[in-house]
């Protein structure tokens, strides 16, 4: 994988920020888009766009082929057994809400346990907290150790002899970069008769995902963190579970037959795709998966891990800088840190004046921030287009922060 060569595919890097070249270290929040994806969307709109399904004319057939082709690309990407188990949504958040509502409301009740982890993004925390409250189920949180890694040894004690119905975890922590042992969690929850829900929004762009190897039951991911357009995500779910579930959104496209007395639901995956979907975005999502796959997920992960190791080492050399999370060999390309006595917003603001874009805040992980004993952190995150000079500029920027505000 040649990051410098790939970087040339991304028009955004021609932009100047405050007269300086852009150092984009916020890919964990959203990734930049290569020409190949932008071209695929434009070409689809220019040559193949119509509403999908049911249209008998040629253009609608073409649009349907594009949309369903993207679904098949996603199926291969996560190694799902069948494309009917791959549902397009608006985002990974919507994918998780779909499971929490459509599965949770019918399957959870008093005496059941819902377990999430201390590492969760609010997207995989709040829906479960809310649905647990609505159904009377108990909501529990699996803690992390000081390295930001899940304490699996605590699992049995956490639930006692309670009835575990669902464990929800992210594959990769968006705050600390921790890569979570999903397979082990799947085995554990299945032994107890519950289901495993995986938020792979942060994992899928950087780490090979295989739903069959993970042995999970649901897996949510999105396009925008994966070089694709915003506004589209996906949910993979085990066919037999999806079949049993009630629909989430109701309306056109998702029905078999509508009568005044009763409506029956369509087949998978359409049962969960009410209304006009983000069609061109789905096509762009497919193009993004092709782009990332061509670079190679293993190569991307290895490259990002090297960048993270360098960034961690160099940040740790700066006095008064604290880094958080596991050692580089067990983390994705995400580095969270704080500069002693200086608020992350101020760090990010000074870095911005140097053209360096990082994220500062709670990263939608307030329970984790509480655990770390901080209000917020700075986070630098990397992707396949990140070059080592960007880390040099991050380090120089942190020195400037200390000069101004220290």
């Amino acid at each position, binding site marked *: 994988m040649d990051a410098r060569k790939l970087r040339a595919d991304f028009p955004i890097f021609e932009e100047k920020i405050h007269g300086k070249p852009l150092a984009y270290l916020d890919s964990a929040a959203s990734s930049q888009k290569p020409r190949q994806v932008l071209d695929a969307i434009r070409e689809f709109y220019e040559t193949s766009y119509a509403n999908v399904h049911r249209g008998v004319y040629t253009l609608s057939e073409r649009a349907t082929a594009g949309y369903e082709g993207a679904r098949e690309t996603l199926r291969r990407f996560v190694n799902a057994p069948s494309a009917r188990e791959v549902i397009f949504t608006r985002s990974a958040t919507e994918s998780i809400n779909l499971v929490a509502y459509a599965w949770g409301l019918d399957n959870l009740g008093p005496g059941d346990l819902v377990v999430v982890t201390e590492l969760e993004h609010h997207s995989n925390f709040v829906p479960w907290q809310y649905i647990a409250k609505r159904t009377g189920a108990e909501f529990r949180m699996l803690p992390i150790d000081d390295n930001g890694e899940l304490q699996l040894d605590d699992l049995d004690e956490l639930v006692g002899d309670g009835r575990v119905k669902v464990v929800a975890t992210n594959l990769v922590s968006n705050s600390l970069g921790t890569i979570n042992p999903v397979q082990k969690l799947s085995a554990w929850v299945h032994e107890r008769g519950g289901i495993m829900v995986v938020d792979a929004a942060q994992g899928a762009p950087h780490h090979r995902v295989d739903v069959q190897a993970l042995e999970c039951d649901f897996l949510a991911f999105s396009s925008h963190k994966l070089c694709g357009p915003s506004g589209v995500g996906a949910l993979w779910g085990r066919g037999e579970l999806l079949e049993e579930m009630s629909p989430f959104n109701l309306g056109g496209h998702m029905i078999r037959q509508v009568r005044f007395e009763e409506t029956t639901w369509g087949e998978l995956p359409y049962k969960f795709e009410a209304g006009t979907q983000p069609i061109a975005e789905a096509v762009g999502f497919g193009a993004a998966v092709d782009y990332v796959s061509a670079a190679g997920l293993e190569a991307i992960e290895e490259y990002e891990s090297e960048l993270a190791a360098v960034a961690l080492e160099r940040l740790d050399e700066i006095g008064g800088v604290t880094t958080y999370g596991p050692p580089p060999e067990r983390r994705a390309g995400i580095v969270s840190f704080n500069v002693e006595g*200086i*608020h*992350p917003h101020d760090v990010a603001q000074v870095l911005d*004046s140097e053209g360096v874009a990082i994220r500062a805040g709670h990263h939608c992980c307030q329970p984790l*921030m509480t655990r770390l004993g901080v*209000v*917020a952190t700075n986070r630098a995150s990397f992707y396949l287009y990140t070059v080592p000079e960007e880390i040099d500029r991050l380090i120089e920027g942190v020195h400037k922060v200390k000069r*101004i505000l220290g």
Partner: protein
Amino acid sequence: MTDDLYREVILDHYKNPRGHGVIDDADAHAEGLNPLCGDEVNIYVQFAEDGETIDDVKFSGRGCAISQASTSMLMEMVKGRKANEIAELPKEELLDEVGIPLTPIRLKCALLGLGVLKVALHRAKGTPLPEEWAGLDELELK
């Protein structure tokens, strides 16, 4: 741009905040949260014998340089003035004092302290609370 933002007077207030602390048994108090970054600020007010004049005012909490400096400036600005006057203090008066160009997101940092002070006065004295600050009041009452 950063040099403008972190000009001398801002850094001075940030590093040596005026009125930083807590007033025990304060006559008015409110706590506010900036949901964007999780920063919290508490403001405590003590009135003079007339029950109207702000005799002492302090703030506590943590935050970025912009929020800390602007709240520090606010403490100096309101001391000795009347509650109903401060309830109607236009935010421009504080922003002029802060005197730096702020993006919409940093504007929230700069104005958090003023909002919390208005909520505190509203609760203690029933002074009007402009709609833009009503959310801060509800936030705490939850």
